[in-house]
C-alpha cells in the first residue's frame, strides 16, 4: 500500500516537473542545464508534507487531499475508527543477520551462531558490503506466506530508506519498498494483508546510561547488537474497526509466528513491535455542500491519519488506539478546545496514558528511497515456493479445531493451541498412549479429554510448583531437558493410574510433582520409596493377574532381554556425538536412555536400560 500510494502521488507530481526539468532536449545539447534550472527552493524537498507513510487511509479509490484534513467520503461508509497495522516480526529463529555473518542475539544474551554479534557491516564500517541475503530469512517469509495465504513474489528487490538516527549505523535501512517478497493474503477473516517485506532491524537506544555518573552530560548509548537482524514487516489494509479487533489481529500474528517457528514473537522482548495507523470516520449532514446533488445530504468525513510508533504491549496497542479514537472523535465533532488532528507520527506514553507528537506534519521525513545497489534481487522458483509451503506445519486455528474434535474441552484446546510446543507435547502423549494399546483400547473423546485435563491441570500445576519455566513463555517448551516429564513418563503415569490402577489420582499428582523436579527414578521406585508401595500391593484386593508383569515388556523373558541389549548397543553405536560428550558431561546419559525408550516405544524398563547402557558405555 505504501508504494501504491507513493507512486500515485509521484505520478501526479512528476508529470509537470519532468518536462520542466529535463525535457525539451536539454539532456543532449546542453547537458548540464538541468542542474542549474532548479525552480523550487532548496528547502522545499527536505520537509515535504506530501508523504504517505502508510495505510490507514489509502482506500484504493480515494484521492489524497492533503490540504484539507477533513476528507469527504461517500455516504455509504460506516462510522467509527479505521486502523491499519504495521507489524514487525524479528526472526529470532535465525542464526545470523539478514545481510551479515554477525550472529543474532538470543534473548538470554548469548550469540545464536557462536560468532560475534556485531559484524563490521552491522556497524556500517566503511568498505563493508552486505552479504547475499540470508536464505533462512527468505524461508521464514515463505512459511509466513502459507499461513497468510499471501502471494510469493517471484522477484523481489531491496531498497534503501534514508534517515539519520543514532540507532541507524548506515544512515539508511535496507528494506523492500517497491517490490516486497509477499503481497496480499489475510491474517484473519476480516483483516487483509497489503504486503510483507524483509528488512534490517536497527540498533537499540538505551536511555542515559551515564545518568549515574553525575559529571557527564546525560548521553544516549546505542546497542548495535540488534542492528542488521531480520525483520518481517507485515502491513495490513485499513480493515480494523476497533482496538479489540487490533489486539486480536496482533495476537493472531504472534500465534502464527510461533507455530511457524520463525519468531518468539514476544512483545516484552521486542521480537514483535507494532505501529498503528488510526483515523476516524464520521457521518455528518453537510450544510455547506457545494455540490448540488440534493440526494446526498449526508456525507462522511474522515480525520487525518495518525501513526503511532513502536507499541510494545497488547495493552498499549489497545489503549493507544482508544486514546486516538477519542482524540480524533473530539476534533471531528468540533468539541471546543479539541486538539487539531493532523497527519503526524506520535508515540504512546505509558505513564501519561496518552500519545505525544514524535514528528509533526512539517517534519515528516523524506526517506529518499533508492534501489540498494549492493544486494541482488531475490528470485524464487516455483519449486522453492512449493517446498516452503510443504514444510509448514499445522496452523493455530487448525490445531484448535482438531483438538476440539478429538474431545479436548474448549478451554484446554485454546490453552494448548496457544503454542505449537504445547500441541506437540499433548499429541506425543496421546499417540504414545494409543501405540501402547493397553492404555486406551479404543480412544474415546472422554479419554482424550481426561488426558488433556491431566496435562493442562496436573502437569501445569506441577511445573509451576517446581518453578520450571517463565511466566509468559510456553509452558511445555524444553520440558524434556528441564524435567523428567517427557511424554513417555507421562504415558507411564497414566498407565499406572488408569490401567494398572497401582496409583490413585492423588498419588499421580505426587509422582508428577517429583518428576517435574527432575526425579529420575522409575514410577515403581517412587511408589516404593516415597508413597508406600502401589495400591494393588497395599490393598491386595485385586483378583486380576499381576499387572507388573505386563508393565515392562522385555524385562521378563530372555528374548526381551536380548532385544534390549541389541537396542542399547545400536543406540550407543549410533549416538557418536553424545558418546564423546558424555565424557565431559555425565548428564548426556539421559540422551541414550531417551533414545532407547524411543526405539522400544517406551516399553523397556528404564532401570534395566540404564544398567545396560552404563555397562555398554563403560566398555567404550
Amino acid at each position, binding site marked *: 500500500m505504501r508504494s501504491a500510494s507513493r507512486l500515485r502521488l509521484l505520478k501526479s507530481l512528476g508529470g509537470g516537473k519532468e518536462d520542466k526539468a529535463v525535457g525539451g532536449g536539454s539532456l543532449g545539447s546542453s547537458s548540464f542545464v538541468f542542474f542549474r534550472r532548479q525552480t523550487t527552493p*532548496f528547502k522545499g524537498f527536505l520537509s515535504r508534507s506530501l508523504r504517505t507513510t502508510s495505510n490507514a487511509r489509502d482506500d484504493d479509490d480515494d484521492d489524497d487531499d492533503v490540504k484539507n484534513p477533513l476528507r469527504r467520503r461517500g455516504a455509504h461508509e460506516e462510522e467509527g475508527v479505521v486502523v491499519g497495522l504495521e507489524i514487525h516480526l524479528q526472526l529470532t529463529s535465525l542464526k545470523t543477520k539478514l545481510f551479515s555473518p554477525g550472529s543474532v542475539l538470543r534473548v538470554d544474551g548469548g550469540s545464536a551462531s557462536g560468532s560475534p554479534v556485531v559484524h563490521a557491516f552491522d556497524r*556500517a*564500517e566503511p*568498505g563493508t558490503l552486505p552479504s547475499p541475503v540470508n536464505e533462512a530469512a527468505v524461508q521464514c517469509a515463505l512459511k509466513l506466506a502459507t499461513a497468510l495465504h499471501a502471494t510469493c513474489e517471484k522477484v523481489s528487490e531491496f531498497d534503501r530508506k534514508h534517515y539519520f538516527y543514532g540507532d541507524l549505523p548506515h544512515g539508511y535501512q535496507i528494506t523492500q519498498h517497491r517490490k516486497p517478497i509477499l503481497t496480499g493474503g489475510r491474517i484473519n477473516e476480516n483483516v487483509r494483508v497489503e504486503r510483507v517485506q524483509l528488512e534490517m532491524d536497527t540498533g537499540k537506544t538505551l536511555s542515559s546510561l551515564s545518568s549515574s555518573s553525575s559529571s557527564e552530560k546525560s548521553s544516549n548509548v546505542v546497542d548495535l547488537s540488534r542492528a542488521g537482524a531480520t525483520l518481517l514487516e507485515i502491513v495490513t489494509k485499513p480493515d480494523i474497526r476497533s482496538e479489540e479487533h487490533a489486539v486480536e489481529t496482533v495476537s493472531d500474528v504472534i500465534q502464527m509466528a510461533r507455530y511457524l517457528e520463525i519468531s518468539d514473537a514476544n512483545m516484552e522482548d521486542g521480537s514483535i513491535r507494532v505501529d498503528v495507523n488510526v483515523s476516524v470516520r464520521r457521518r455528518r449532514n453537510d450544510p455547506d455542500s457545494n455540490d448540488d446533488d440534493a440526494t446526498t445530504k449526508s456525507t462522511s468525513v474522515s480525520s487525518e491519519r495518525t501513526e503511532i510508533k513502536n507499541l510494545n504491549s497488547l495493552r498499549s496497542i489497545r489503549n493507544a488506539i482508544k486514546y486516538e479514537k477519542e482524540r480524533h472523535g473530539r476534533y471531528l465533532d468540533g468539541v471546543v478546545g479539541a486538539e487539531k488532528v493532523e497527519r503526524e507520527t506520535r508515540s504512546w506514553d505509558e505513564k501519561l496514558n496518552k500519545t505525544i507528537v514524535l514528528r509533526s506534519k512539517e517534519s515528516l521525513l523524506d526517506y*529518499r528511497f533508492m534501489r540498494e545497489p549492493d544486494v541482488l534481487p531475490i528470485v524464487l522458483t516455483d519449486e522453492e515456493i512449493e517446498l516452503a509451503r510443504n514444510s509448514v506445519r499445522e496452523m493455530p486455528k487448525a490445531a484448535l479445531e482438531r483438538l476440539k474434535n478429538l474431545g479436548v474441552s474448549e478451554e484446554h484446546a485454546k490453552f494448548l493451541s496457544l503454542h505449537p510446543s504445547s500441541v506437540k507435547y499433548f499429541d506425543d502423549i496421546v499417540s504414545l498412549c494409543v501405540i501402547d494399546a493397553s492404555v486406551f483400547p479404543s480412544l474415546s473423546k472422554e479419554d482424550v479429554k481426561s488426558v488433556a485435563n491431566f496435562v493442562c491441570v496436573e502437569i501445569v500445576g506441577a511445573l509451576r510448583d517446581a518453578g520450571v519455566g517463565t511466566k509468559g513463555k510456553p509452558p511445555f517448551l524444553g520440558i524434556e531437558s528441564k524435567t523428567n516429564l517427557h511424554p513417555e513418563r507421562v504415558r507411564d503415569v497414566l498407565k499406572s493410574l488408569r490401567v494398572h490402577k497401582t496409583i490413585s489420582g492423588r498419588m499421580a499428582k505426587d509422582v508428577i510433582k517429583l518428576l517435574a523436579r527432575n526425579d529420575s527414578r522409575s514410577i515403581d521406585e517412587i511408589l516404593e520409596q516415597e508413597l508406600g508401595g502401589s495400591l494393588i500391593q497395599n490393598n491386595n484386593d485385586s483378583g486380576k493377574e499381576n499387572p507388573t508383569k505386563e508393565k515392562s515388556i522385555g524385562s521378563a523373558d530372555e528374548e526381551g532381554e536380548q532385544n534390549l541389549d541389541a537396542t542399547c548397543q545400536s543406540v550407543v553405536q549410533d549416538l557418536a556425538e553424545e558418546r564423546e560428550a558424555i565424557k565431559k558431561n555425565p548428564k548426556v546419559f539421559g540422551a541414550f536412555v531417551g533414545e532407547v525408550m524411543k526405539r522400544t516405544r517406551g516399553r523397556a524398563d528404564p532401570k534395566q536400560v540404564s544398567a545396560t547402557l552404563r555397562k555398554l558405555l563403560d566398555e567404550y
Partner: protein
Amino acid sequence: MTFSPPLSPPLRARGGVGVNCKKNNNNNAKKKKKKKKNFCRRFATASSNASSSSSSSSSSSSSEIDGTTKSVIKKIAQKLQSGELTSLRVTEMYLKRMKDSSLNCYASVNEEDALERAAEMDRERMNPERGEKKRSLLHGIPIAVKDNICTKNTYTTAGSKILREYRPDFDADVVKHLNKEGVVVLGKTNMDEFGMGSTTESSAYAPTSNPWDESRVPGGSSGGSAAAVAAQLCAASLGSDTGGSIRQPAAFCGTVGLKPSYGRVSRHGLLAYASSFDCIGPITSSVEDAAILMDVLCGNTGDDNNSNLDAKYFDSSNNNSSSSGSSSFTDAIVSKENLVDVAAPLKGKTFAVIKETFTGLDEKVSASVMESIELVESLGAKVHEVSCPTFLFGLPAYYILALSEASSNLARYDGIRFGAQDYLNMDLVDSIKSSRFEGFGAEVKRRILMGTYTLSEGYSDAYYKRAQEVRRLIYAEMTQHLQTYDGFLTPATSSLAYMKNENQEPLAMFTGDLMTVNVNLSGLPALVIRSKDSADENNTLLPSGIQIIGKKYGEAELLGVGHIIEMFSAERKLYKDAFPEASLF
C-alpha cells in the same frame, strides 16, 4: 534531438577513418604501404632495441623474463631473483625518492612497516627450503594503494577530514590478494575526497602535482596513484574508478590505467562512492604490469561472498562462464618475437571510433589520439567511425546516478562510530550536523546535496529514474556496437592536464569526465595507454592517452591489444628525475 558534432580536422583530413579504407582497395593498399614505411621510420629506435635484446634472451617462454619488457615489475623481479637487488633495497630506494619528491603523491606512508615487510620477503626468498617454490612475480615488489582502499590497521582516509583517524580492522579483498603474493604495500596515495573530483585538489590534505609539470594537476581522483607511478615512486599502484578516476589521471600522467568490468574485482574494502559504478583497477607504467596485477586482483577470497555479486548485478544470465577468472591476463601478453604476424599483429581486429567523442576535443589531444589510431590501422586492424547518439547523455545521467548513490553511501559518516569523533559531546542531531559540516569538504558537500535532491520525493522520477533509463540505453547501444567491433577507440580525456586552480566552476569540471563516464554506466572494461605527448605553450611536453573500451569481461583481449600498441609505439619521454639506478630498472 539531433546530433551534428563536427568531425575534427585531423579525422577529416584523413578522409574518414573507416569508410575510405573500404572504398578503394587499391588505394587502401597503397596507403597501407606508405603508412608502414612511415611506421618503420618513426619507430626505428624501438625496433632496433627489440632486435638487439631479443638475441640476449634466448628462451622466450612467457614466464621467463626477457630483456625487452617494459614491465617494471618484471624487471625488479628479475633483479630480486638474480640477487642483484633485495626487496629491502628497492623499498628503501622508493622511500628515499618519496622523501625527495615534491609531488605529494602519498597521503600516508608507514615506512617501518614497509621496510619490515620487505625484509621479511627477502628472508622468505633467501630461505633455501622454500627457495625451490615457484614464487609470484609480485613477491617483494613495492606497490602503492589508493587511500580509499582499506588496509588493516593503517590509515585509510579517502582524502577526507572526517576519516582523519580511521584505521580499519580489515584488509580489502584486493589488498589481501596482494599480500598473499608477497607484495610490499608502500603507502596510501592521495586522492580527491571520497573520489569526488578530477584533480586531486579536493583532498582534505594537500593537492598532488603532475610529475610532468608541477603547475598542473595529475588528474583525479586517483591522482596520487597515477603520479606516483609516473614519477617512479612505486613499482605500480591501485586506483579506483567510478567515473574515470583511474583512466583520466593515467592519461594526464602518462601511465597505463585499466578500469576492469564492473564486478570483475571485488569491491569489498573499497570505501563506496557510487556502488553501482565503483571499480578497483591497476595503474602501472606498462600494459604488462597491469596484466600481472589483474591476475592477482581478480582472485576470490572465499571468505567474502561479494566478489561475484557485482557481476550478477549487470547481467545475471551469463556471468558464470565469463566472470570466473580462470584465464590468465598475462597469457594475453605476447612479446614481439612471439607474434604470429609481426607485420600486422592486429590483423582481423575491427575497432570503432565514436564520432561524438571528437566534439569539442582539444586539438593537441585530438592529434595525439589520431596518431594512435593510425598506428592501430598500420598494425593491421580496421577502424570504422560509428555514431553513438546516446553518448552525450552519459554525463548528466552519470552525475545524477553517482551523486544519488553517493548521498546514500556517505550517510554513514556521522562522526559517531569511526573516524574523527570530534563532536560526541553534543546531542545527536547537533553532533551529526557538526561532524558532517566540518568533516566534509566543499565538493563532497555539494555532491551530497545534489544527490539528496535527485533522490528526494517528487524529484526522483524526473531525475533518478530517468537517468536509470538513460543508463540502460547507453548500455544497450554500446553492447550492440560491440557485437560488430572488438572495441572502441576514444580519447581518454578531452584536454591535456589542467592547470592547478584552473577549474573552479564545478559543472565545467564535470564536463572533463565526458570520455570516461559512459564506460562506467555500461560496466564495460577500458584500458588507457599513453599516446603521443604534446607540447604546451611553455613547450613543456605533456602526455595524453588513448582509451580502448572492450567487451564485458574482455580485459584479457584488451590487455593483449594494448600491449601490441604499446610495443609498436614510439618511445615516450622518461620522467625528468627517472631513477638514477635506471640501469638497474
